[in-house]
């Protein structure tokens, strides 16, 4: 916890190399750190600052701008309940009020067991399924009070583990995408003369820098399918 793990560090360096400017990697690295710890720890922000060549204050400044990035600890599951117009007309405030009552916390708070956080969200672009609720950025809807209860029970029981990873994990398949603007240091000082002209390793290949540590994607866990997941 805290500092970026060795594996994530390597991944972070690969991300930094994708951009012409180091600091451009700031937000992707914040997501990487959040996937590791569920939120952005101070230590991780310091690591990111070093990797991006900025100050920790600038990392926290950027991270605090975005609702998707948390600089304070949050629960394993973060409910984002939309209260914009479409969802509001469909009863979003009833769902929100029910959620607060059911979990015994206010919007913006986390249950004492560290399982759930509730947030009131602006439009999540799921108006066709109002009331739309995101759990760790996975869409569920329409959700009513009863549906919310079932969602909580399913999450608590681990029945949705295949659909909803712990908070912070955006995708469980790591793809090395994009052409590196600068080769990672390890590639530039490679002793292998043949590698000099070859495209950088992993440039377009669908493999993570250290493949065995990454969970293999199954059809059920395909991010595209997650949108289909429904509460109960």
């Amino acid at each position, binding site marked *: 916890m805290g500092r970026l793990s060795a594996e994530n560090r390597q991944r972070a360096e690969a991300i930094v190399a994708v951009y012409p400017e180091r600091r451009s990697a700031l937000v992707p690295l914040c997501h990487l750190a959040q996937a590791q710890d569920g939120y952005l720890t*101070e230590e991780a*922000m310091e690591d990111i600052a070093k990797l991006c060549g*900025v*100050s*920790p*204050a*600038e*990392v*926290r*400044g950027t991270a*605090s*701008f975005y609702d998707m990035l948390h600089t304070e600890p949050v629960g394993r599951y973060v409910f984002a309940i939309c209260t914009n117009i479409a969802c509001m007309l469909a009863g979003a405030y009833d769902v929100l009020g029910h959620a607060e009552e059911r979990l015994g916390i206010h919007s913006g708070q986390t249950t004492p067991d560290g399982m759930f956080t509730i947030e009131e969200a602006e439009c999540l672009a799921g108006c066709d399924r109002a009331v739309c609720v995101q759990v760790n950025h996975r869409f569920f809807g329409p959700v009513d009070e009863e549906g919310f209860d079932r969602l909580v029970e399913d999450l608590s029981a681990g029945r949705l583990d295949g659909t909803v990873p712990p908070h912070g994990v955006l995708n469980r398949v790591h793809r090395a995408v994009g052409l590196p603007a600068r080769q990672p240091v390890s590639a530039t000082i490679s002793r292998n003369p043949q590698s000099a002209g070859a495209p950088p390793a992993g440039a377009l290949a669908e493999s993570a820098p250290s493949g065995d540590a990454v969970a293999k994607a199954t059809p059920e866990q395909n991010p595209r399918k997650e949108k289909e997941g429904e509460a109960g």
Partner: protein
Amino acid sequence: MPDTTATTTTTTTTATPDTPEAPAKPETLAITLNGREVTAQPGELIIEAAERHGVFIPRFCYHPRMKPVGMCRMCLVEVSSPRGPSLQPACFVSVADGQEIETESPAARKAQEGVLEFLLVNHPLDCPVCDKGGECPLQDQAMSHGPGESRFIEEKRHWAKPIVLGPLTLLDRERCIQCARCTRFAEEIAGEPLIDFFSRGDAIEVATFPEKPFDSYFAGNTIQICPVGALTSVPYRFKSRPWDLEQVESTCTFCAVGCRVAVQSSAGKVVRFLGIDSGPVNQSWLCDRGRYGFEAVNARERLGQPLCRKDGELVPVSWNEALADVGRGIREAVSSQGPASVGIIGGARLPNEGQYAWSKLARAVIGTDNVDAQLGDGLPAELVVSLPQATIDEACHSKYVVVLAGDLREELPILHLRLRTAAAHHGLLVVDCSPVPTALAEVAAAVVPAKPGESAASVPDLVGSGGPLEGVDGSDVVVVLGRPSVSESADSVAAAAAAFVRALPGVRFLPALRRANVRGALDMGLAPGMLPGRVTLEAGRSWYESQWGSMPASAGLDTRAMLEAAAAGTMRVLVLLGADPLCDFPDRDLATRALERIPFLVAIGTLPTASAQLADVVLPAAGPTERGGTTTNIEGRVTHLAQKVVPPGVARQDWVIASEIAEQLGLDLGFDHLEGIWEEIEEVVPSHFGATVEAVYGPAGADGVVLPVSGVGLSLLPPGADPRRRLDPVATPGIDSVITQGAPMFAGFAEVPSGQVAESVAIEEAWAGVEPPALSADSVRTSGSSAPRPAPATFDPDRWPVPGAPVPDSYGFRLVARRFLYDQGALVQASPSLGKLAPRQRLHLRRKELQQLGIEDGGKVRVRSARGELIVPVELDESVPGGVAVLGFNLEPVDEPGLASIIDADEVAQTVRIETVED
């Protein structure tokens, strides 16, 4: 530097050859400003062009010394475009040919009022309890460009207040209007982005990272440029209201950069320093030591009464008694052992006039050449005055700057700021070859640490093949030359200077000496073997005999030699001119023995320093802001010092004390007023010919006069012009509070009538058609003497041989004794806010050597030299080169063993061994 000086036009570009106007004049553009046809420069921002033509556009985020961001939207004006007039931020859009700009049209006016109404939505309007109230750009512009009332009736946001951003910086977040001046300053100018905006919308706040306070040396600037009362300083918070302040323009004398400041006082006490935008020097910035150092002037322990030692105790006496004692002491010493038994140490913090008086007193009255303003921690006077010199502007505009000095951020912070900005934003290539990389290393083109004691040997590496200065024209290089380490001999630095002159013909130097007026002291001959005017004793002897009467027979002793003579018993009288050798001399053992042995010790100064406690007579002197005169900065730029408050008790000006002592010795120095001394200096001192009283003391000298005055001539203000400069580029003309923002040059300067604005524009217009008087050395009145004027010392590389390399010691580390901005020196410690910021002593080593020694980071070690030993904690510091150990100078209280107890001043470079300590 691309000086965006349009708003803060420096009214006197004093003989600085490379002002920004130097390149070929670009074509001008014709624009229509509020229906008036005016001209503008290509690339100029609308807000700048308008300001030059007397049209003020309201603004908050715009600052002429920073890049525009267009954040606050207050400067919206109507600008013509192919699609018709549109609202554009004047601080972000450059002028174009034929552009029509309306700053006061109904549309522009409505936009400005709308923005102000928005800015005030979350502003608490707590002006009656806000420090900024009365000098607040938001307050002023709400009156001049605001709608008058707000439609906002909802609850405003509330925050805990104030929060601590840094040791001396407080933040009231609800007052913040998010102009980002502070965060931009920290990132862009200071290069220390320790503060940033957090969160978003109405939850936005300026904050630091947790546990990483805004402890920048430049933090005070964010307070000065905050256009609201959000940022306040600990020393000034709730101290005064702007309308209670009196102020005067002066020069900061807490280091040798010579920043121009507004000294502000309330009820007879100095309460605040603000930076004034002096283009060639500080460009409106100040360091925190300069900004808050005035606290030492108000210190409770200030000397206000002469003291004499009676029965072993220092007791208050009258001036007459104390002066008679001093006169008797000196007379006895001279009559028993000759004038060479009298020595004078210090004087680097005196104004030029005081230094000249003391130099004259020593040479012509007492007859001794034992005078030294530096405490063995500077550079040889002859070297400094003879090297080809460069100004700060020239250094910033040159292609390369080589730094062979201590960390400039710690020693001359604003010089660091100027060089850093030039390197980070304007392509200056910095080569850092100090033994331990300085704060400039971050933006440096090359970092080539010289080995301590062998600086000269590193020069071939720099200019040789593959070096960063290979094939470089010497005229493109400025070397910032200082004393990188007080445990390294000055000869080694002098030899390096000689090596640079040989390797790079045409190279120029900027001396990085730190005591306030040390350059003035060297110019005034407060150095053995040097006479006023940058001439050696031998070269100037006949001239000064004709001017002053008599001259000492031979060159005298420097501080170290004087202390050695005192310790050996051959010295009879030592006069400490504000000097505190016990604290500041690198070899404490020698200083202690000398001061304990000397039969008669006179201490003249502002504070009861450790050395003054040993004195037989203590004379209280006026301190900064309590005395007029002039000061000379590292460039050789003479600026005017203004008196704002009266000294405590019966403390006197330094030149008065010198005159009184001369009178005790039966001679008259011939001074009766301050300007009279300068008149004599201008007439007698060769390097100061042409720097007339009007040029230096008068309003014209706002940016100072660089010596020697060249044939180019000085541009002076026309008589009667108001030299006031706006303190704040946000200041709204026409509003009363602003009129008092420009500090007059003199206390008691006639007030500008209400409604009339001090504008540099007005000064330039007043000059129209008037040819500035050309002043050159030739037109200077010649004195009646027939003796030829002595020529200033010229630099001879062979005069500075390379000292023998230190004996290699395979177990030893070369010691670098570096300085910190805040140390245990009397001046810092007398200032309550700064004193506690002095860091604790740490031995800095890199990881590899820590591991070899088997020491944990933070563990204690014994540092041993032939002289003594010291037990200190170690700190891991990867910037330290191999084989080098770094300690801070003057970080231990004077009564504890410190770094000065292990330095042997005889060594070229101090070698130390590091041993582990068993607990």
